[in-house]
């Protein structure tokens, strides 16, 4: 029998290798594929299109004997979690072997790159601009405009840099692309190279992702002849969150301390080694082959307002049905958390969700009607960032979460500007006083002042956005910051 099991790091962390080994030991052919992204079901086993999960090695015989009913989920592709999605970037998820060039070509791979060769630089950029694709790394800057700046920048040498630092808690879509569909990312980078006249690309992957690093290295070797003369090289980060910030990342690639650079100059004018550089998130570049293969309009047809296309939303934390949910912009936060995510994994009520990683705001269920869209989130003092949603149940202490935001900022600050470096430490101390019940009201005012200073006086969003989680926690969950009685603290 042919058995399909993912080799994605999450499936492996949940025990997929032992399950695969058990099937193999019993004489079955095991094919390691990418993950469908239904994480609560991993390790997911697929036999003739039908799924079982989560499977332990000790379940294997029962499944083979037809006794695995309680693990059966029916036809995987028809599962409501999959059927409800619009998978453009994750179209191959669960379906192909990540390092199979045959699988990639058989599922529309390289069609975008071929078309890009025919179109030429200006027309590629026009296509990407018309698609409305915005940067998926957090800031939502239009990709086409960035590319055009680099295309028009004078310079013999230009670079494409893929930001695969994915440091935000609650996010894993970049990792899943790199481990599940690495050729798509490489194709996107090669198209970017043609668009701006760059012949070299770097992928900067965080060191916490050893599996993604190995997959990408293997994929780059396999794809080299297909993208030549464009070249891609994999580089590994060294455990600094701030290196996800684009100018810090460039310094890191150059072998320097990962300090943030003042802008201007923009990386598009003076980026890596002083050369014009496109720096884009994994998901941004991974969306490009679709745009080129199917045309800008096919992408722009999805979404709402100025948020076009799809967003691979990541459901994480204390959520029942966690995983990768790619959908057109416009779906509400509540639909994602309650309907798709099924509420909390603990079975307790949802109390808060943090959207957009450690620099994103905490939302109470009262704001669940907010549509997933860059502008709509900004309007309620939040951000969608890289699309991660972390769910918390009613046992969460929001004062602790606010304190953690300062703590994280203090630990990861690059140290270049005072509001971030000092402000985060002061903020943490002040919140400690609030938590200890020392003149809560005046100390909270102090925190608000500090946040204003950080917001407007920081060079980058690490210091500048730390006020989002802090102030949203205080604003939406004031009861956690009040003077505490003995029993409430217990």
């Amino acid at each position, binding site marked *: 029998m042919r058995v399909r099991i993912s080799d994605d790091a999450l499936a492996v962390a949940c025990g997929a290798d032992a399950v695969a080994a058990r099937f193999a030991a019993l004489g079955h052919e095991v094919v390691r594929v990418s993950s469908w992204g239904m994480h609560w079901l991993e390790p997911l086993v697929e036999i003739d299109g039908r799924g079982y999960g989560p499977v332990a090695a000790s379940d294997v015989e029962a499944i083979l004997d037809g006794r695995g009913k309680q693990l059966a989920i029916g036809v995987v592709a028809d599962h409501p979690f999959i059927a409800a999605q619009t998978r453009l970037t994750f179209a191959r998820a669960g379906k192909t072997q990540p390092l199979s060039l045959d699988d990639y070509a058989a599922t529309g791979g390289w069609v975008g790159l071929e078309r890009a060769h025919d179109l030429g630089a200006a027309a590629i950029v026009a296509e990407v601009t018309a698609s409305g694709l915005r940067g998926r790394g957090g800031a939502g800057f239009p990709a086409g405009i960035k590319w055009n700046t680099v295309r028009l920048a004078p310079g013999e040498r230009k670079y494409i840099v893929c930001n695969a630092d994915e440091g935000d808690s609650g996010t894993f879509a970049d990792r899943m692309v790199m481990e599940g569909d690495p050729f798509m990312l490489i194709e996107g980078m090669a198209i970017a190279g043609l668009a701006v006249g760059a012949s070299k690309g770097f992928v900067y992957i965080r*060191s916490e992702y050893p599996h993604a690093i190995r997959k990408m290295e293997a994929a780059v070797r396999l794809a080299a002849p297909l993208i030549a003369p464009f070249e891609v090289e994999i580089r590994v980060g060294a455990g600094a969150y701030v290196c996800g910030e684009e100018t810090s990342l460039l310094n890191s690639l150059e072998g320097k301390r990962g300090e943030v650079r003042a802008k201007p100059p923009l990386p598009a004018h003076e980026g890596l080694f002083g050369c014009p550089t496109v720096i884009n998130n994994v998901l941004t570049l991974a969306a490009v082959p679709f745009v080129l293969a199917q045309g800008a309009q096919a992408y722009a047809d999805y979404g709402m307002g100025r948020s076009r296309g799809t967003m691979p939303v990541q459901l994480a934390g204390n959520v029942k049905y966690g995983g990768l949910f790619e959908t057109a912009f416009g779906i509400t936060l509540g639909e994602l958390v309650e309907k798709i995510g099924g509420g909390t994994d603990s079975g307790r009520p949802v109390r808060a969700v943090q959207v957009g990683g450690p620099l994103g705001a905490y939302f109470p269920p009262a704001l669940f009607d907010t549509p997933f869209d860059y502008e709509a989130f900004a309007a309620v003092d939040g951000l969608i960032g890289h699309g991660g949603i972390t769910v918390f149940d009613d046992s*969460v202490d929001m004062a602790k979460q606010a304190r953690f935001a300062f703590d994280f900022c203090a630990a990861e600050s690059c140290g270049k500007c005072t509001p971030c470096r000092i402000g985060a430490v002061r903020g943490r101390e002040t919140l400690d006083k609030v938590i200890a019940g020392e003149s809560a009201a005046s100390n909270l005012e102090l925190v608000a002042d500090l946040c204003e200073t950080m917001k407007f006086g920081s060079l980058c969003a690490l210091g500048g956005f730390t006020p989002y989680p802090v102030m949203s926690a205080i604003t939406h969950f004031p009861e956690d910051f009040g003077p505490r009685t003995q029993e409430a603290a217990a």
Partner: protein
Amino acid sequence: MADLYHILAAHDGREGPLLPILHDVQAAFGHVSEEAIRAIALHLNLSRAEVSGVVSFYHDFRRTPDPRTAIKLCRAESCQARGSEALAAEAERSAGSRVRVETVYCLGLCSVGPNAMIGEDLHARLDGAKVAALIGAM
């Protein structure tokens, strides 16, 4: 330190070779020593202060050796929401002085936490007993 010179030579001609070199040195020796910093600086035509500054900036590089094996426990928000803080205390208890418990902020497995990494091996859906067993087997 013959190995060090092999590492340096292996990166000759690379653009921005310092981080790849430091990763290899850290992997080969478990830390980046004063001696290594001196040799790297000389080889890349940098000052020792520059190389030291880079080593100290990044959490992955250690200046001094630590013979203990390490377990990296994720303590970022999504794992917090699934109980990582209680686990951290349990891990410290089990580790004693034999194992080093490090904090990592996110392993990209945020829907199945709490999570940990030992070497390159990932472990998900941890609870107190599983963490104690993992550390016991290290």
